[in-house]
């Protein structure tokens, strides 16, 4: 990777405000250029993998199965082409700017529609900005994707600290609260005085924190992993006790789903306690790949959506493919961020899905294969200023990655009232 002194080509001019304060905190264009020896070394390591024996079971109940890993490694070694991913990344304007002492990498694509709504989208773990690449054009250029000009967004997609091309923190403290402040600073630095924020997985924690901090200019948030669980129910579920009170069918289903999820998040508990001990994922590509693949969704661990992607080579509708799964894993490898990304779990000491007390306008899309399907009743209590609530008919934990078309349509619908209000004010 290399930082260039000349600006990368961009589809639309940046606002004049972008240059404000440029001397103190410049925004530098960034191009991804991985040196060829790094790619050669990766291939050499994959080829030299020393494998464990086959798991002792015929399913994935002991972890990512050997046959799956060996197939994936073979494809990674012989057919996957990182340069194609690099080209996709470099086809959008990438930047780096220092915020709160740390280099923050971000993609920033302005819509041609000048009154587009600025939107910051936050990825999660085991993801990266690669999760969001397919929604960029759908959001910035809606007229090419069945939308109207009024639906357009200016899109900002940062890499979290310790992830991808962002810097790795060298001291503790970079949890969701601090990231939320950094994102507000980033939007301000970009000259956006009124904007919205979106996130799933860790991104959902960050946008909740943005909602709590309610920085000037933040009009609303959209989350696809809402934290809605009432305190008494959350306490009971954490303790493994039956949830109190008279629950509706939807609420009972959510409790069952949460209990299932809590039984599938040992990876999270591990990283929350011992991120540094994962030396093996810095040293072994296959070790890293297995670790990143073993995230659950409602339909399985590893996530059913990711497993089905491993047998999908192309998709006209933008559904997740094998190459994209490997693009993301390769990004972690090339930036050596397996351990630094894991530290985010260590930083965070708060609850998972408990209601956080966000009072600004909130939009929610519930995807059916998410960790749990938030009931509207809980959503209304957790987010009293709920401006949008919809249950999508497909998609899961990696919604933007799995169903970009549907995801983009959700964001348009979710923020339409904010768009209209902003335009009329």
């Amino acid at each position: 990777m290399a930082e260039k002194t000349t600006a990368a080509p961009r589809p639309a001019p940046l606002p004049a405000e972008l240059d404000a304060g440029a001397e103190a905190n410049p925004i530098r264009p960034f191009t991804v250029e991985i040196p060829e020896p790094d790619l050669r070394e990766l291939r050499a390591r994959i080829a030299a993998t020393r494998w464990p024996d086959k798991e002792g079971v015929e399913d994935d109940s002991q972890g990512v199965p050997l046959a799956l890993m060996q197939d994936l490694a073979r494809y990674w070694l012989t057919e996957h082409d990182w340069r194609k991913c690099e080209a996709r990344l470099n086809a959008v304007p990438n930047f780096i700017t220092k915020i709160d002492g740390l280099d923050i990498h971000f993609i920033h694509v302005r819509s041609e529609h000048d009154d587009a709504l600025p939107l910051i989208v936050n990825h999660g773990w085991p993801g990266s900005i690669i999760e969001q690449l397919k929604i960029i054009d759908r959001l910035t250029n809606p007229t090419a994707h069945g939308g109207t000009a009024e639906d357009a967004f200016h899109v900002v997609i940062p890499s979290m600290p310790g992830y991808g091309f962002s810097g790795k923190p060298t001291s503790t403290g970079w949890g969701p609260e601090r990231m939320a402040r950094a994102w507000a600073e980033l939007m301000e630095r970009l000259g956006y005085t009124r904007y919205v924020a979106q996130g799933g997985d860790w991104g959902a924690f960050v946008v909740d924190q943005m909602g709590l901090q309610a920085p000037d200019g933040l009009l609303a948030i959209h989350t696809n992993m809402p934290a809605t669980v009432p305190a008494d129910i959350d306490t009971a579920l954490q303790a493994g006790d039956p949830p109190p009170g008279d629950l509706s069918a939807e609420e009972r289903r959510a409790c069952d789903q949460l209990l299932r999820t809590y039984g599938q998040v040992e990876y999270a508990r591990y990283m929350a306690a011992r991120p540094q001990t994962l030396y093996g994922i810095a040293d072994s590509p296959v070790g890293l790949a297995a670790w990143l693949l073993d995230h659950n969704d409602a339909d399985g661990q590893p996530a059913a959506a990711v497993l089905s992607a491993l047998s999908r080579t192309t998709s006209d509708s933008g559904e997740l493919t094998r190459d994209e799964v490997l693009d993301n894993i390769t990004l972690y490898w090339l930036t050596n961020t397996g351990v630094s990304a894991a530290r985010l779990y260590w930083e965070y000491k708060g609850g998972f899905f408990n209601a956080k007390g966000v009072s600004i306008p909130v939009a929610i899309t519930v995807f059916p294969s998410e960790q749990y399907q938030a009931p509207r009743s809980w959503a209304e209590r957790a987010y009293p200023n709920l401006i949008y609530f919809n249950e999508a008919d497909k998609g899961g934990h990696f919604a933007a990655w799995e169903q970009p078309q549907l995801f983009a349509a959700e964001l348009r619908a979710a923020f339409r009232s904010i768009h209209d209000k902003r335009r009329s004010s």
Partner: protein
Amino acid sequence: MSTTVETATDIRSFHVEIPEEQLEELRRRIEATRWPSKELVDDRSEGVQLETLKALSRYWATEYDWRNAEAKLNALPQFMTEIDGVDIHFIHVRSRHEDALPLIVTHGWPGSVIELLETVGPLTDPTSHGGRAEDAFHLVLPSLPGYGFSGEPNEVGWDAGRTAQAWAELMQRIGYTRYAAQGGDLGAIVTDVLGRQAPEGLLGIHMNLLVTTLGAPTPPPGDTEEERAALDAINTFTTSGFGYFLEQSTRPQTIGYSLLDSPVGLAAWLLDHDTDSYYKISSAFVDGEPVGNLTRDNIIDNITLYWLTGTGASAARWYWELGQAQAKAHAAGQAPPDVSLPVGFTTFPGEIFRAPRSWVEASYPNLSYFSEPDRGGHFAAWEEPELFSDEVRAAFRSLRTNGGSS
């Protein structure tokens, strides 16, 4: 060791001989390690510290000599025998004192028979180690299934209960009709179950980890200062030191890829056990000040054994079996049978928690020996082999009055 026993029961002699290429490849991989960035804290709270692991890997690649470990192992009689479909490797040292008490000692995780090597002298030959002839043991040190040179089960179900049954079969096959059993860590789990199964010939057990407390559905009482301190220590362990347990008991295959492919990844995983042992081991590498017998060579012998036998994943799988067994027991809601045999217990001060006598008595009403020495930790046999041997001698002394010879 009498050869007649061997031929009668299909026990094969075993010798460790690792091909040189494997040692070269190991060194090559250590030298090619790609490191993560340094942890963000000044202690072990984020995991194994970079400085510790770099010091370890430097020594491992440049000065360490596996052939010394091999020689130590091969200096002892080693055997292999198939039990219940799995090849079980074991060390078997008969005391020259014929009426010695046969004793089977089970290692734990992240250990192996390497943990127990320095106890062989004191236990089998007490008169050369400050003890008396009446304290002698005939010693059997098996490798758990999936560990070291033992085979790996190719079916599920090899939990502690099945392992304990295999140990009873092993002792019988060797020809020991009256024997005792000892264990810490996973070895304590196996020994506890063995005590509950009470196979014919088992006279008593001794443990140095109170396993009835760690996985208990209801916490033990916190009425005394000692009990409260132990509860605090358990709480610290389960909130910050329990990660390896959770991961290995649910997703052993997933972490297994890193453990098989990266020597340094394996080393870190194996070092990250309890706080006390970690700092003792770290001190050996970073400050050149080993505590007790936890020397650089001894620590790396054990890690190298895991590497060369490729058992990182299969050893982790033992926890998966443990998790399955615990879930099944929990669902059945049945308390395991009591241990009616005499039980000895030693609380070493550096252990994950200092088991108070009150808890040990509640778990084992037939407690016949309890002691709290002033040093030693989780790897008591490894760290303080002489002291550990004293404890084992004292714990089983009363059993001998009934006649302990095979």
